[in-house]
């Protein structure tokens, strides 16, 4: 408390000290940036340019209008002996200040229109990536490549709740970033799985709502490799602030290497799905999955939030037959925020997390759930 107060005092006293104290938060961070970023694409540059034009026009008008107003407030005050005039109309002046702003607007509409045309120029893409918003993570699918993965927040609950110091990438780090190559026109096809999310990468000038049942398109093409961080910008529930977007732009050769690696991974996974897992292996993996994908609602202690998210500890489903439990994860529960995880988690992960839920927090069922059980359930559907 005292430390906080002291920090506050120092900051109030001198912004310079604050700058020095908190300086160098992170390499790619936009520390204490005041303006819109120019970004690295044509679209973000266009947004920046029109933003600056508007800002300057408003500044000029503002200085003129308020300047006049302050002059009036100074010169025509009663205490300086001002005597009120009695005019209350002047059609010429009134006409002028209706027409001149209208003309300014017409002029501004021209760059505003060209900028918007750029945003909508989604034709002729080299690469198509499907972006799906989930509560509370993003899924990226490289269309036609057989590569698909989830991108989730990596910052720990301990950092968020102040039980551990916050890392330099606090809330700006994910399990797997989206990777795209330089020099290629990438089209994003954006949709939502449950509620509406919004996929925003400021440095690309791309912000699109991810609406269930609807696909919208946006695009980016850049020559500047780097890591670009964005956010979810449509309120989507309790994890809204905890589903950042991270995009890594790699030179083309590196990108191709990365993509090949991803494909190999997928093949490798398919070949090992039949493996028998031990009780303890599943517990370890299950806890990991649980913390990442389930604890947001059902809480780390499995007790849920009364009236909103049911408890899993001592729940009849968790303690009953494992098929019933698997069914909930694969199919979701219609009409509630319990979504289907069939598309989000691998068979191994689903098996592990079911196993974990059946054997954690005093739920001592004692059996083992194998990936094969999950696969069988899917086959029998």
């Amino acid at each position: 408390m005292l430390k906080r107060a002291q920090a506050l005092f120092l900051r109030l006293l001198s912004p310079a000290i604050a700058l020095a104290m908190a300086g160098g938060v992170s390499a790619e961070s936009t520390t204490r940036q005041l303006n819109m970023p120019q970004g690295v694409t044509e679209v973000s540059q266009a947004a920046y340019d029109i933003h600056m034009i508007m800002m300057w026009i408003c500044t000029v008008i503002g200085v003129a209008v308020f300047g006049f107003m302050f002059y009036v407030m100074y010169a025509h005050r009663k205490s300086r002996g001002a005597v009120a005039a009695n005019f209350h109309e002047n059609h010429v002046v009134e006409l002028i200040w209706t027409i001149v702003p209208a003309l300014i607007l017409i002029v501004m509409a021209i760059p505003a229109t060209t900028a918007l045309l750029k945003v909508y120029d989604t034709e002729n893409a080299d690469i198509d990536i499907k972006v799906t918003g989930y509560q509370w993570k993003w899924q990226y699918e490289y269309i036609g490549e057989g590569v698909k993965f989830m991108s989730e927040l990596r910052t720990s609950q301990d950092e968020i709740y102040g039980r551990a110091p916050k890392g330099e990438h606090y809330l700006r780090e994910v399990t797997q970033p989206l990777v795209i190559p330089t020099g290629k026109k990438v089209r994003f096809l954006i949709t939502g799985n449950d509620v509406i999310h919004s996929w925003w990468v400021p440095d690309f000038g791309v912000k699109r709502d991810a609406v269930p049942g609807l696909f919208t398109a946006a695009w980016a093409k850049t020559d500047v490799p780097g890591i670009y961080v964005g956010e979810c910008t449509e309120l989507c529930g309790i994890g809204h602030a905890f589903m950042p977007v991270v995009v890594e732009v790699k030179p083309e050769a590196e990108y191709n290497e990365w993509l090949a690696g991803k494909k190999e991974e997928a093949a490798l996974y398919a070949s090992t799905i039949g493996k028998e897992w031990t009780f303890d292996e599943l517990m370890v993996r299950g806890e990991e999955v649980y913390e990442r994908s389930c604890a947001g609602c059902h809480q780390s202690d499995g007790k849920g939030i009364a009236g909103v998210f049911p408890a899993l500890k001592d729940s009849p489903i968790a303690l009953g037959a494992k098929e019933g439990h698997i069914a909930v994860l694969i199919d979701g529960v219609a009409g509630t925020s319990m979504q289907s995880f069939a598309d989000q988690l691998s068979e191994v992960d689903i098996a592990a997390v079911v196993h974990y839920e059946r054997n954690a927090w005093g739920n001592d069922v004692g059996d083992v759930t194998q990936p094969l059980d999950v696969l069988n359930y899917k086959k029998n559907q």
Partner: protein
Amino acid sequence: MAHGPATLADGWGKYLSRWLFTTNHKDIGTLYLWFSFAMFIMGGAFAMVIRAELFQPGMQLIKPEFFNQMTTMHGLVMVFGAIMPAFVGLANWMIPMMIGAPDMALPRMNNLSFWILPFAFAILTSTLFMEGGGPNFGWTFYAPLSTTYAPDTVNYFIFGVHIMGASSIMGSINIIATVMNMRAPGMTYMKMPMFVWTWVITAFLLVAVMPVLAGAVTMMLMDINFGTSFFDAAGGGDPVLFQHIFWFFGHPEVYIIILPAFGVVSHIIPTFSRKPLFGYSSMVYATAAIAFLSFVVWAHHMFTVGMPIAGELYFMYATMLIAVPTGVKVFNWITTMYRGSLTFETPMLFSIAFVILFTFGGFTGMMLSIAAADMQYHDTYFVVAHFHYVMVAGAVFSGTAAVYYWLPKWCGKMYNETMGKVQFWIAFIGFNITFMPQHFLGLAGMPRRYADYGLQFADWNMVSSIGAFMYGGAQILFLFNVVRTIGWGEPTKDPKVWEGAEGLEWTLPTPAPYHTFAKPPKIK
């Protein structure tokens, strides 16, 4: 024969039934104003919780679940509970006195439209104490977050919104009926005071869009409880439809909030400039133009939803147009001050701040109207800053100015000028410390409705929170000043109160008697 109102001296029973059953426009105005202030304090308390949590990165005081309930309740309570009833209260007090009418046209409905409001808000706030918590989907309650994914208490929210809507519609009908039928002989439309004009136009907006809001929540109710899928993509519905319906209500709603505020300022600035309002008729036409345009720009709130480009362009051009009539109003106010004889009492200070800060919010509004740039601004703190400049420094400042301006007329006692000025400066500085940095936060990339944020946003959030506590503190001074005035204020010496005041209300004795204009006044 007119009888006086019951006072505490007549016993509690009589006193309470006076307020419960009153049909007197002044009593009902007073009830609205106190109710509004209570809601302002409650909504303010929610804001303080939000700003305290956002004081530093990380979750310190509350959980994200409760944070979302706070942002939602703050927005709902401030818009529907604080700002709208405040101006209905002012309308009740002032419209009959300004047009020379003895009371509102429909006094019993007037009583009803007020007394259902406390129930609406009791229902709404009670959800905070229920299992599942209060509404947590934002004041814009986008489906399906507010339908399929909402807590069960959403049904109480829907019921509450229905009651508020009914109250607003009744209030508006009453105002329209009063102004159309009860003007003193000789008071033609183009002689009506600006406050009356802005309120009639607002009342028409309300009657037009409140049913749309009611339709939206009814469709939600059906989706949640009766298996329809208006907004559920899985059942063939469309979540975007919800947004179109909501904003068809929502954009006129923001003008419902600001037009009466324009009216108030159009009275105060001439009074303290000792000079008639410049360009009265262009003010009337500009107000009507703004009201008309407000129906045809709604999708500027949806630039990122993926509309076809033709739609985007249309809504962009239409929105840019609003700047023209809005500009006319600002120029008129400033020209009213030009070559006046200015003094700076508390109501004037708030009105001048209104003109400056509202115009600032108008500038950011113009920036937001540019669709390509809005793709970067949308749903960030830049938008939060924009609408607080127009709604707090706009509507709330003007409401505060109105209370200081007319309070001496209402109760025949003068408020403490020094305290008023101190309140003004704390509010003015606190407001700007709170909301100016939010522009920077938004441009630098901080989305709105975030319970937690990255370290790069820490400094401005802390500054903003400090400003918010300061602004909150100024309201305590306001309450104190008003209560002190009513209880122990100096009696006003001049019945006209302000040297430069013009209008029928100032021809009445001070304090204004319980019944006024039993005989219509003569209008020159």
